[in-house]
């Protein structure tokens, strides 16, 4: 029976990872700070990502589950949040709407453009995919049949993406004077999008350690309790 259990575990993992691996191109992995169990959201990186998101992405995409007020959960003060919202002529309770209305998007692209709030959860690879996509615009290789309406992207499935390269060197004036390279902006906005996709991520990861530790110790104690209770059965057998 032990064989059965270990076999089941191994095979389940094999079959599900085979299922999860869908993309054809290997995504380069980035060292995201949120991948640590102790991680908190970094306010400065969220802020830079926010600048990219509001100044670049939101010309065409919305973040409909995000309000300025939510930034207070990652270390922004009420005054800072108010100021940022005012700069965008929004209230702190307004959701992040795209500057491009769905009607205009349909006229230009024949479809409404996707909301970005949960985008990092909607693509295999998550933040790595977002980063790879934003830095993956290239000249189409020789002989590649690129339609007029598309751009070539190394990491987009099929390589033809309708979205033109959104990031250009120096496009954003970072609040902290960070040099706005394409890679820097891609990294910041992918990080920001991880936060918009799962704001609970860091809480979850921090709490999980304690929960698992608690259950682990409980399991050990229960094991010895079980052994103690069953010991009298063994004794009766040998008598």
């Amino acid at each position: 029976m032990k064989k059965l259990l270990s076999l089941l575990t191994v095979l389940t993992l094999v079959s599900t990872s085979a299922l999860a691996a869908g993309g054809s191109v290997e995504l380069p992995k980035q060292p995201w700070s949120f991948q640590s169990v102790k991680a908190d959201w970094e306010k400065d990186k969220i802020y830079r990502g926010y600048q990219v998101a509001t100044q670049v992405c939101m010309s065409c995409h919305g973040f409909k589950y995000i309000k300025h007020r939510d930034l207070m959960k990652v270390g922004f003060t009420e005054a800072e949040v108010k100021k940022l919202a005012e700069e965008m002529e929004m209230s702190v309770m307004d959701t992040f709407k795209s500057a491009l209305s769905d009607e205009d998007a349909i006229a230009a692209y024949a479809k409404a453009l996707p909301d970005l709030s949960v985008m990092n959860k909607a693509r295999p690879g998550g933040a790595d995919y977002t980063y790879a996509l934003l830095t993956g615009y290239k000249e189409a290789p020789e002989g590649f049949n690129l339609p007029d309406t598309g751009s070539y992207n190394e990491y987009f499935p099929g390589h033809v993406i309708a979205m033109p390269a959104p990031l250009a060197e120096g496009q954003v004036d970072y609040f902290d004077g960070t040099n706005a390279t394409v890679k820097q902006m891609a990294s910041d906005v992918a990080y920001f999008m991880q936060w918009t996709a799962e704001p609970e991520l860091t809480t979850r990861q921090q709490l999980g350690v304690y929960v698992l530790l608690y259950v682990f110790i409980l399991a050990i104690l229960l094991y010895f309790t079980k052994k103690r209770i069953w010991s009298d059965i063994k004794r009766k057998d040998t008598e």
Partner: protein
Amino acid sequence: MAKQQVNPNPSSKLEWFEDRLPLISFMKAELVDYPAPKNLNYAWNFGSLAGIALILQILTGFFLTMHYKADAGLAFDSIQHIMRDVNWGWLIRNLHMVGASFFFIVVYIHIGRGLYYGSYKSPREILWGMGVLIFFLMMATAFLGYVLPWGQMSFWGAQVITNLISVIPLVGDDIVIWLWGGYGVNDATLTRFYSLHFLLPFVILGVVFLHLWALHNRKVKSNNPTGIDLKKDTDFVPFHPYYTIKDTFGLAVYMLPFLFMVFYMPDYLGHTDNYIPADPMTTPAHIVPEWYFLPFYAILRAINFNILFLDSKLLGVIAMVSSIAILFILPILDKSKVRSARFRPIYKVMFWAFIANFFFLGWLGAKPAEQPYTAMSQVATALYFGFFLALPWIAKIEKTKPLPTSI
């Protein structure tokens, strides 16, 4: 027969109550004194674990219903509302979502244990049948639940699965339209799926009660790893404290991988496409069911040929339903008098081959419906049914090992 009447002068309030409703003595008999074989191994933990998994699904589901909106325009947003705004909403949803997958893992092991130790044989045919019925109901419930977040996989999965009903000759198409409440999966479908998803777990609970009733019947009781009938009183121990503590310990061990997934990989077993809102105009590149349906999905797609006047689609559905329903008649198919695979050398090999083949089918179910996967699925499907159909013959030729006289 004085005991047949209530005592007019009860010595305590408890006796007065017990004479009228023997609740306490019932619970004592079934949960405390129930004689369980003392040689049960850890494979026997998965029955109670399945019960706990069911309760956890019902409890977490109940709290989700307070915040979820079963409306095509609101469903997706309401999930995000739960994940972001509801206190501990993310935890409740992750428990429910990962809980569904783990419920299936537990039940698959539970069924596997029944197969290995011959728990389906006389006198446990009804007990086994109730279990198969629970498995069917679970699959329906899980399918309905996966539709509720109203993501792309929800929508298109619902489209594919409900379309299967259209293969029923003559009335199939009408039934599907009736089921959808329209001419495709739509808002009405979502709402009724929600109603059913709420209802079915309680139906499961009812059948679980019958399942336990059949088990606790003193003429039946639990099977054990040797598969032999236990006759001596000393072969048994009272359920409490021996199995209450063993099951609690097992529960804690189970909680480790389960909670690890809840806290660190909640979306790992799901599909990323389900974070894209349902869009009837855009079909996903691959429509894949949840992992726990994959073996049966492979069987469904393996049948891509017509037989005489029977359409391949109809045959595929028949094959898929039969692949589970055949478990109902397993007690008839397996004529060997020996229960446990420990004493059945041929059956033991067949069992492990069946398990390996089942995983192979699961792997195939996640692959696109193209060669060489289709041919592989056909072979694996033949092997799957071959296992069951070979059992009557195996019983005749197999030389079983001598059975012990007691444990």
